[in-house]
């Protein structure tokens, strides 16, 4: 009884709009950054001043200037155009990895939790098997085995990416499946697939959505990392990770690696802020404060 917290001094109740803004300011900022990169990805051919793959040895390693706003790289390609085009591959890779693995992992985890018994054992031991390996190393091994190329790298990432969704979905479904509304659906005679995908999964989806948003930045980062190691894209294709790799020895010509790095940073932070915002919004406890 002595361990009860003392009542805190109550701040004057702020107007709800101000409170909303304070709570979600970062999320809104993150959303703006992401929308910006989406627009860039869509409009890259229109807004890029140069062809990103156009080699011009004569004007190699030019510092930022009026002609080349972000300078040129070792082959004289325009860094700005390459950064703008690079957003396409990063976003596509990030989304395809996260969305496909989230859907696959969720279905697997949900079935495991719903069925229990042997099915659960089998499916969850399979996920454990994948989780045993260090994800980046495994993805590298798979990507190297499949050969260099965007699609192959995405496939390699998918293989290591889905287990965490399976685990999360399983725990969420386990909570929901013993709820009385699920029992009621059983008593009404609904089939298992109907109960699982119409009743249980929609109620378990909230934390999964949060995880997907937070994970998008992560997936983009890992894809860039694999490209940095030379496993992502086939060389002339503009890709941020590969661009950073090309500029890593060029200390004097800082612009070659810095601008794609900033691009990666902004996208990853943008997704993280949005993910945090969605988490707060879905969590009634955080929402009250």
């Amino acid at each position, binding site marked *: *009884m*002595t*361990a*009860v*917290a*003392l*009542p*805190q001094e*109550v701040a004057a*109740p702020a107007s*709800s709009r101000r*409170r909303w803004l304070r709570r979600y300011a970062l999320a809104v900022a993150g959303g703006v950054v992401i929308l910006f990169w989406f627009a860039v990805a869509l409009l890259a051919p229109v807004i890029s001043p140069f062809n990103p793959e156009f080699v011009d040895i004569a004007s190699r390693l030019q510092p930022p200037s009026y002609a080349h706003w972000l300078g040129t790289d070792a082959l004289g390609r325009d860094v700005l155009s390459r950064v703008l085009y690079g957003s396409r591959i990063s976003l596509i890779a990030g989304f395809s990895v996260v969305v496909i693995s989230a859907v696959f992992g969720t279905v697997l985890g949900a079935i495991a939790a719903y069925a229990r018994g042997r099915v659960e054992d089998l499916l969850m031991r399979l996920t454990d098997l994948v989780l045993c390996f260090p994800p980046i190393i495994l993805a590298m091994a798979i990507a190297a085995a499949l050969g260099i190329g965007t699609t192959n790298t995405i496939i390699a990432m998918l293989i290591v990416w889905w287990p965490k969704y399976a685990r999360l979905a399983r725990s969420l479904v386990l909570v929901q499946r013993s*709820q*009385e*509304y699920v*029992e*009621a*659906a*059983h*008593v*009404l*005679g*609904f*089939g*298992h697939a*109907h109960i699982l995908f119409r*009743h249980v999964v*929609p*109620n378990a989806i909230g934390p999964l959505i949060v995880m997907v948003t937070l994970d998008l930045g992560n997936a983009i980062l890992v894809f860039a990392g694999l490209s940095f190691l030379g496993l992502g894209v086939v060389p002339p294709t503009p890709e941020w990770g590969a661009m950073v790799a090309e500029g890593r020895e060029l200390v004097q010509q800082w612009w070659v690696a810095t601008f794609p790095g900033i691009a990666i940073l902004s996208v990853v932070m943008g997704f993280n802020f949005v993910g945090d915002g969605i988490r707060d919004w879905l969590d009634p406890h955080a929402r*009250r404060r």
Partner: protein
Amino acid sequence: MPDDAEIIKNSDSDSVPILSVEDLRTHFFTDQGVVRAVDGVTFHVHAGETLGIVGESGSGKSITAKSVIRLIEEPGRIVSGRIDFRGRDVLTLDHGALRRLRGGEVAMVFQDPMTSLNPVLKIARQLVETMVEHGRFSPKAALARAVDLLGRMGINAPKRAVESYPHQFSGGMRQRVMLAMGFSNEPVLLIADEPTTALDVTIQAQILDLLRELNADFGTAIILISHDLGVIANICSRIVVMYAGEVVEEGPAEKLLADPKHPYTWALLNAVPRLDRHTPGEKKLVTIEGTPPDPLNWPGGCRFRPRCPFAIDACGEHPALKEFEPGRAARCWVTQQGGVLPAVGVVADAQSSPQPRAAARSTVSYAVADAAVATRGEVLLELRDVKKHFPLAKTSFFGEPRVLHAVDGVDLTVFKGETVGLVGESGCGKSTLGRLIVRLHEPTAGSIAYGGVDISHANSATIRPLRRRLQMIFQDPYASLNPRMTVGQILSGPLQFHGMTQGAQATASRVRELLDVVGLPALAADRFPLEFSGGQRQRVSIARALAVSPEFIVADEPISALDVNIQAQIINLLIDLQQRFALTYLFIAHDLAVVRHVSDRIVVLYLGKVMEIAPAGALFASPLHPYTKSLISAAPIPDAAVERKRERLRLTGEPPSAIDLPSGCRFRTRCPIATELCANEIPPLIEHRPGQWAACHFAGKL
């Protein structure tokens, strides 16, 4: 409201109260607006007094109690008022003085014994900490005192108990530990907030006995907060009734419960069926309309007016809490102007003493019960030696596999059109039995036949046609509706799935019809469950069960999560539906008075086995099994005079675990008349009187 500050003089007003709360207002500043949870409450507690605060959820009773020791957290604030505890103004105490007050002079026991102890610390540590913290005992003396106190609270082997962790104790035991902790510093005042709500009746009776003893032995004043008038009547000498953040009536327990002067108190008393006043055949309960008011926006005038059956023109104005005789006050224009409320439980004759009345009733009940037995129709459901064992994880790799015997050999026949009540303490297997019948669980052994078809091991496809005839209503209205579907979708799903309506038009009109049947407006179809109160949700849940036009409904504690008045509304609805649609019910509940009220026959379950089956009247008039007798004796009656005079049969201890069952009769470990025979031989379920079966070697001998 200056009139609210009018002080109610206590009958023994010569003594100065230890606690006086005056015009207390505790408000919560939420995103939606200001919740005036406690809105001008005045009451006093004298030394050694037992005060009961009663009201439905949201009436502000718990917030009032927490305000007394300033346990109000953000966004709540005590806005105004005075709390005087033994000459000190609690509202201006600094944190140090406040800490000395809490747990020192004022102790508090909360509702949920499962969460109010720290799970990672041993009992000894938690008890000693409280005592040493207040500087009254050295650690060594405190430990000795902890052992003493636990013994005093009725815990066996207290020396061993202090070395245990909370999870090793049951709910009742933990509540005893909480009481030991509360009493460790010899408080002047104990605030108990629904201390027995989470416990079974037999354990509740033990804790209430303990509270009464502690009050008598230590002279500690008690504020008991409860929604259950029976519990309040059992302990309290004075009662404060709260409604919508205000005190609406106050007075000595006997008088207030026998002759309420506020319509809300009157409604509370009428809404609960009583064990000692039962008229066979009279099934409708007196209820008041509507739901508890919105705390963001209390109704203008008298706050009870929108629900009050006696409202007059004067009620448009807010009434004051007026004292009309020494120690009794009510906030009601009707009674203040000399209006008289109808007697509580009008059908019962209030003049005769309870003893002869019970006898007279019992003969009547027999006649009715026998008639019911004679007119039995066809058998709808038949259980034969049904068992459900849940395998548990082994304690060690080489350990014996352990099994939980949830239901362990139950025979039961349910006839068309009757209501069978199923009672027992928690863990006795009543919910598991209900779920076996609707085949949410598959029985481990035995057979379940529904309408002559064996469904014991039927798979989901073969059982599907039967689902239309066999439905279930669940306990928790907050968990039993899918929060992501509108009420319309919840109701139309089963209609479409079973092809009961053709086309969207027909489905929509059937949904409206269903909503109408359970007393909800057609507009409800477009709303989500979140927008409804508990009682309304339970109506939706009932409508969903009715959607497929079933003939048999398993109701698993359908009212235990609801306030008493809403309980009465739901009971009335269920009874009404039974008559309209010729339904058969299996009604699972732990509240004996409710079960008796709705049931034709009652099954008493203990540790997965049937102890007694009898017509409702006979079971209560002359129970054969000692367990039945002790259950009836433990159920409180909301009448202080009756409560004090009642002879009781107290059960000691708690039910043994369903993993390691006692040999012979399962009840023998707690039975007052158990002999060696009971340990050696399992008593068979035998028909001792027409329709009354009991599994006891000494049936009717107690």
